[in-house]
């Protein structure tokens, strides 16, 4: 025989098949080219959500082989570690940080950062995180404590808080952290994550305690969305919404109970038509003259947008039932089935209309809202440049709010806004944007 797999083998004994220098170089160059082209053509993996718990999902990769036979836990859990971090932490006002803090808390300035964190909360592989960590995707890729990447699916989502429960496939039961009961304002906490094999703990403190959420201030970088927040006993206290130095965090124990109930009810993705409502009160009641739910935001590309709903519409009925408040509208919409055709009765410019909308899912709306946010720009005039502080106070408008529309007309500049206000006096219905929230207000002339 003289060839094998297409390579000629009839070389004389003592001579090498690829012995000639030019042949070696050529083969090496072709191989290098294959590597470069292959690497360039690699499909991009989605930005992962990182699961901090050390007992998280031991799958994939070389180390995972060792993990395969492992029973529960074994490695020291981050929850226990968190206790040490937070006890070693100085009060947030202190100027001198002890060296332990530097060791454990590297600045989050790496170029590649996770989209957010999550925490394993059940032996079955449930991971609690926040919608912002998903960046609007309906699927998530999770990096586990072993460094492996796993595809997780969403089992429950709560639109009001953005909390999301993912399920990561696990072969062996995991250890879930102990849950903390409520904490007091002023308590020191640590937001803990894991990235590139390192535990990242960030000091923070609870600046206020609300009925449904804590406000958490972190002296360093903003917390990443979905970061688990541990108290000084190493118990899981809350899940941070992230994104701000002073942001909201939702109590984990209560959130978990609510999400578990949602998952059990089979409503992983609650229905939504992609609108936000604003309660009618004060001046607005007079401006509209009848009860209903005021549509304050319509997500571009969402079902309501497709059906022709616009901000400023007053929703007065869904299917056959009347709607007299924004609460009633939310309740009724929450009971609708996804993909069902729903008839909305709205009042626009004093005339009644009927629109038909196909109900979508809340998580899809998050994605749409996020993409709309990116496009939002333009030199909108600030409310404080158009009205006095007293006017703003009585109308309930924040001074920094930007004016989007006046009586249905889009605002492009301060001078054009002033013209519109003169045209519409004595009182104007204005549409404003403040901290990513849009809303209506009725404002009168300067007394």
């Amino acid at each position, binding site marked *: *025989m003289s060839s*094998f*797999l297409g*390579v000629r*083998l009839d*070389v004389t*004994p003592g001579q*090498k*098949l*690829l*012995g000639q220098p030019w042949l*070696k*170089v050529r*083969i*090496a160059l*072709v*191989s*290098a080219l*294959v*590597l470069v082209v*292959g*690497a360039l*053509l*690699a*499909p991009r993996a989605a930005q992962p959500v990182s699961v901090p718990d050390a007992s998280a999902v031991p*799958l*994939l*990769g*070389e*180390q*995972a*082989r*060792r*993990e*395969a*036979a*492992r029973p529960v836990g*074994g*490695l020291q859990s981050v929850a226990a570690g968190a206790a040490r971090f937070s006890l070693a932490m100085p009060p947030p006002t202190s100027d001198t940080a002890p060296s332990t803090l530097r060791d454990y808390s590297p600045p989050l300035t790496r170029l590649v950062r996770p989209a957010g964190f999550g925490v394993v909360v059940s032996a079955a592989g449930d991971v609690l995180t926040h919608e912002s960590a998903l960046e609007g*995707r*309906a*699927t998530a890729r999770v990096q586990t404590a072993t460094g*492996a990447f*796993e*595809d997780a699916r969403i089992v429950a989502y709560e639109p009001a808080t953005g909390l999301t429960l993912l399920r990561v*496939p696990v*072969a062996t039961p995991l250890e879930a952290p102990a849950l903390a009961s409520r904490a007091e304002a002023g308590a020191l906490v640590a937001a803990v994550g894991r990235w590139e094999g390192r535990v990242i703990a960030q000091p923070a403190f609870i600046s206020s305690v609300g009925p449904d959420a804590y406000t958490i201030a972190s002296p360093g970088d903003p917390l990443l969305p979905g970061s688990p927040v541990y108290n000084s006993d190493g118990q899981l206290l809350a899940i941070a919404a992230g994104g701000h130095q002073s942001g909201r965090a939702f109590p984990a124990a209560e959130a978990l109970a609510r999400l578990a109930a949602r998952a059990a009810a089979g409503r992983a993705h609650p229905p939504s038509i992609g609108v936000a409502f604003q309660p009618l009160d004060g001046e607005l009641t007079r401006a509209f003259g009848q009860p209903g739910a005021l549509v304050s935001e319509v997500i571009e590309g969402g079902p309501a947008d497709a059906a022709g709903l616009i901000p400023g519409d007053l929703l007065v009925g869904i299917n056959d039932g009347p709607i007299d408040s924004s609460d009633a509208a939310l309740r009724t919409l929450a009971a609708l089935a996804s993909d069902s055709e729903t008839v909305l009765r709205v009042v626009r410019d004093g005339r009644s209309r009927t629109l038909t909308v196909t109900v979508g899912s809340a998580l899809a709306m998050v994605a749409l809202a996020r993409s709309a946010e990116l496009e939002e720009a333009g030199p909108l005039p600030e409310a404080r440049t158009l009205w006095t502080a007293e006017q703003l106070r009585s109308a309930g408008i924040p001074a920094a709010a930007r004016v989007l529309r006046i009586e249905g007309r889009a605002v492009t500049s301060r001078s054009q806004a002033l013209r519109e206000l003169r045209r519409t006096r004595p009182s104007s219905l204005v549409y404003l944007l403040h901290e990513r929230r849009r809303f209506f207000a009725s404002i009168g002339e300067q007394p």
Partner: protein
Amino acid sequence: MNEILSVGVILVAALVAGHVAQLLRVPEVTGYLLVGAAIGPSTLDLISHENLTTLAFLSEVALGLILFNIGSIFEASNLRHVGPGIVRVTLWEASLAFALVGVTLALAGLDWPLAVLLAVVAMETAPATTMMVLNEYDAKGPLTDRLLALVALNNMYVLVTFGIVTAVLSLTQPSTDGWLLTGYRAGHGLAWTTMGSVALGVVVGVFADLLSSRAKEYGEALILVIGVVLVAVGASRWLGLSPLISTLALGATVANTSVHGERLLGGLGQADPPLYAAFFVLAGAELVPASVLGLGAAGLCYTVARATGKIVGARVGLRGQDVPDPVRRQLGYCLVSSSSLAVGLTIQIRTAFPDYAATVTGIVLAAVVIFEIVGPLLTRRALLLTGEAQTMPAPLAEAASGNASP
């Protein structure tokens, strides 16, 4: 136990186990694996999970060196004897194991995708165990000539088949990404792990060839070999390639480019026994002997169908080839061992198809325990029956010399 102490315990245990194995007339590998299973976390827990995790790199390095050695079998003049023949045997033994396991499990009532995935895992034969047994008995002959090349080809065939099967199955799975992206991802993954890994091995191999003329002393040659193998394994991990294929390709490239190749490969033989001993004790420590008890009917089908497929397939593949009769009968038995690649594939299956994770893990882990213990014994028996074992096991040799000079 800290990691240095654990390595010490592993090496001492390996030495003792090797001697006991010789007394019991079983291959040393079996001794290493059994002592590993005994001191491992599943049994005595002298070596804990943490130790295994920290020592994982030792196993990877050892496996890299073993595959580098096996790759060197693809030297052109070697292949001239056995080339097309072993390709045929590989295709037969692996494909028959695939078909038998797949059909049996499907008939036993498993979902067809699950049966197909398990069938791919069943195709694999352990390279490291096989090479250790051949080395221990200094085996030479037509069976030995074929066996290592066969195992190397088998592993490549398995990885390619696994790539194709997972690509097709992932297209049938519901996905939010759309079939085009899923298909592209799967296709790229397959091409990348095969062609990319070979390319990496070749690049590193040519590089090693350039350096080999400078590495004159034994010590330098050893440094060069271990260095390039580590580069190949490490770069594979970094680039997401298969360390298995890249080290095989590296060995093949060095053997075919470098006139110093034999010196490089020979240098390795004197320095690596501690590493290999540690590798097999660690492999044993990862076994979960108790899992055999949970084997179940499907596991039994898997075990029997795989062994049958390998033994019969090799025999059919050798039909019409000019080999002695004992070789024809025994070659299949040498292919029964199964190990790290099977476990590696299982881990990938668990990630890609979480629904099947529990079943696949249960069956494969139990089957690996059986095949890792039985495989070397069958290989040893085959070497004795074909007369290819050059060194007699020590107690026999002692007995023989005792008889000769009373």
